[in-house]
């Protein structure tokens, strides 16, 4: 076993290249608002510009195939890029985009050659951003219960319905979504998966008023939206995976969203908390000298390390072709419940300073206050904690003859 990535001289050379490039290209003015709703249009554009530049080099989606605009790099090189971008406090992509990681993978696995050529290069080079439009009022955990319809009419499908809890601020270019294509068919055999251009007539987007948009920190997910489709006509070409095959297509991105992709990178929130406690005096000494604070800081650290290692394991498993079963939902479950526990530890450590983003009386530029909200809200997206447990149990094979298999990944 070896937990430390070993870098060949060639990789080290690559790291120097990436590092130098990032130094030249990450704009100086990028800020990290504590609440993703604080990401301004200008800041979003800075991040998009960086995304396009990364995309032009094949570094935005490093492991995606070259023929579809990706970097075609192996994991050893992708790791280097992820580590270096992480050291700038950024992620890949440096903005909220559910296209490359989730929808893009579904298209890679299930799309026709023409569809891959049409949809993937703009995504993988950062020309477009896409939103994931799954949830509806009657379809949360029970995603297969969607009511939005897409009915075939000649060379087009006509969409009608409503999606909630989706997207972000500042718009998108494509929405990928799952709808009913055959109202008469059985559950799971009645769905279609579509790439919907977001500028089409009949699409209305309205912001939702939530406690916070979620814990997708760093990527500036912004404000969640309600999207209405009123007789929206889309080309039949945009149906991915074939007629009534939508559920199958969805299993790919759902699998990834359940945490199976893994992740390399640190929890910046923990760093910020530690830094705050080191540099803030309470009763005449640094907070880190207070035994109670020390105990709780260590609790936070322990939580973060477990999450980091489960994500690291999943990243390794995915890229080494290991047989993944329950590990994805496990990482998701532990991350979510751990985020809740961290929020309470922060409240214990900081007192009411952890509940305000006041410049004088708050803590760590409002990042702690934001987590006091995000810790709660982030347990829902991508499947609730209960749903992660349901899937884990099936994959472990608790009480059943046949263990459920994980969804197909690219």
């Amino acid at each position: 076993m070896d937990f430390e990535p070993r870098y060949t001289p060639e990789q080290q050379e690559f790291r120097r290249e990436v590092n130098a490039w990032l130094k030249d290209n990450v704009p100086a003015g990028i800020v990290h608002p504590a609440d993703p709703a604080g990401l301004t249009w200008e800041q979003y554009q800075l991040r998009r510009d960086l995304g396009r530049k990364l995309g032009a080099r094949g570094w935005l989606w490093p492991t995606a195939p070259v023929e579809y605009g990706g970097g075609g790099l192996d994991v050893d090189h992708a790791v280097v890029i992820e580590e270096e971008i992480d050291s700038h406090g950024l992620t890949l992509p440096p903005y909220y985009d559910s296209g490359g990681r989730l929808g893009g993978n579904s298209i890679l696995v299930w799309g026709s050659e023409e569809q891959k050529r049409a949809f993937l290069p703009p995504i993988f080079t950062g020309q477009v951003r896409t939103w994931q439009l799954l949830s509806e009022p009657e379809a949360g955990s029970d995603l297969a219960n969607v009511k939005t319809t897409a009915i075939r009419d000649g060379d087009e499908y006509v969409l009608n319905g409503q999606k909630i809890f989706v997207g972000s601020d500042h718009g998108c270019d494509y929405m990928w979504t799952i709808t009913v294509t055959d109202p008469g068919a059985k559950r799971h055999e009645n769905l279609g998966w579509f790439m919907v251009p977001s500028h089409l007539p009949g699409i209305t987007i309205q912001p939702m008023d939530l406690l916070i948009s979620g814990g997708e920190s760093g990527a500036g997910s912004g404000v969640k939206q309600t999207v209405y489709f009123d007789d929206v006509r889309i080309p039949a070409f945009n149906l991915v995976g074939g007629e009534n095959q939508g559920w199958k297509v969805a299993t790919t991105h759902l699998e990834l969203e359940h945490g199976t992709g893994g992740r390399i990178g640190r929890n910046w929130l923990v760093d910020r908390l530690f830094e705050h406690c080191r540099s803030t005096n309470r009763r005449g000494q640094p907070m880190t000298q207070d035994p109670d604070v020390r105990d709780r800081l260590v609790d936070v650290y322990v939580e973060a390390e477990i999450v980091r290692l489960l994500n690291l394991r999943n990243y390794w498993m995915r890229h080494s072709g290991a047989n993944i079963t329950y590990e994805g939902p496990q990482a998701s479950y532990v991350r979510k419940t751990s985020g809740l526990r961290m929020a309470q530890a922060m409240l214990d450590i900081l007192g009411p300073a952890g509940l305000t983003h006041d410049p004088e009386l708050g803590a760590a530029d409002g990042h702690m206050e934001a987590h006091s909200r995000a810790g709660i809200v982030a347990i829902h997206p991508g499947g609730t904690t209960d749903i992660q447990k349901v899937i884990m149990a099936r994959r472990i094979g608790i009480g059943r003859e046949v263990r459920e298999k994980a969804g197909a990944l690219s």
Partner: protein
Amino acid sequence: MDLALTPEQEMLKAAARRFVAQEYPKEALLQIASPDETTPLEPWGQLAATGWLGILIPLEYGGEGGSFTDAGVLFEELGRGPTPGPHIASAALSALAVLEGGTESQKRHWLPRIASGELRLVPAITESDYGWDEADVRAVATVADVAAVDSDGDGGGGLRVNGVKAYVFDGQSASHFLCAVRSGESNDVALTVIPADAPGVRARGLPGFAWNLSEVRFDNVAVDAGDVLGGGWAAWRRAVEKAIPVLCAFQVGGCQAVYELSVDYSRTRIQFGTPIGRFQRVQDQIISLVNHLDAARWTTYEALWKLDAGRDATASVRLAKAVASEGYYQACNYAHEVHAGVGSMTEYGLTLHTAASRTLYHYLGDPKQHKRELAAALGL
């Protein structure tokens, strides 16, 4: 033994529940909670008209002379809103502080006005080095030119108060502050009444998830020495000990409200063709929630009973605050698990409780502090 409420308490409970439903419907609570809204005084006027703000104030000082348990019953219902203050701050904490630490003439002066709601007297104790101990009070009061400050002309002399109070609960809805100050001469800590509109006093709300917390600045504020409560910090401590179970009852009411919301939602929300309450995982969340609720309820009501019965209540009070603070915090977490996405929508109203639970977790001391004091009270 009889753990039932008296018929009078049942009537009070029903009346308070009707009052909260009528005066503080969800829409009103949401509007009050929205950042650009200053707390409207209209429901406060209605609350004052009920006479309930005098529930802990003896009849001779214009109150209702109720028991601690009566107050618990009332504040539990107010907690169901959760209704915004400054009812706990003024009618429970400050009223008890004046009772414990005021001279006879101070009691006659302040208590009837607290009972009538005319005075919204809000304790301003904690500072940026957050803590509830005497040692944490740094705001300073120095003896000032007597003639300049002796506003009531009784020759009692005057003080100048300087300092910044932080995380003051209900600070923005105060008409007066009950401010903890350290004497520049003797170094003793005392509490003094200061009008919120006195020159040099400035309160501002703290933005974010905090529920009605403020910063209050006192810049060279002139105070009549006759407005300093006689009893000092010891009297304040006695008042806090009695007010805590009343605060806990408010937290119990919050737990009760999110419990009922969760049970209702588990019956009506359909996923996978069935009410989600059929899923054992959802049942588990609600069962954990109700366990927190009942733990908070019975530790709280026993502490209230001990105060009424004149027993030594110290350990019970610490126990109740530790359990109720943790309970309300966790009850909200479980309610969020049950509701998933809908619970994080502002318009649904659950997040009002979540915000309240976080702030009250720390108000008058967090679970850790009370566990430590409990250990001492147990002679460990």
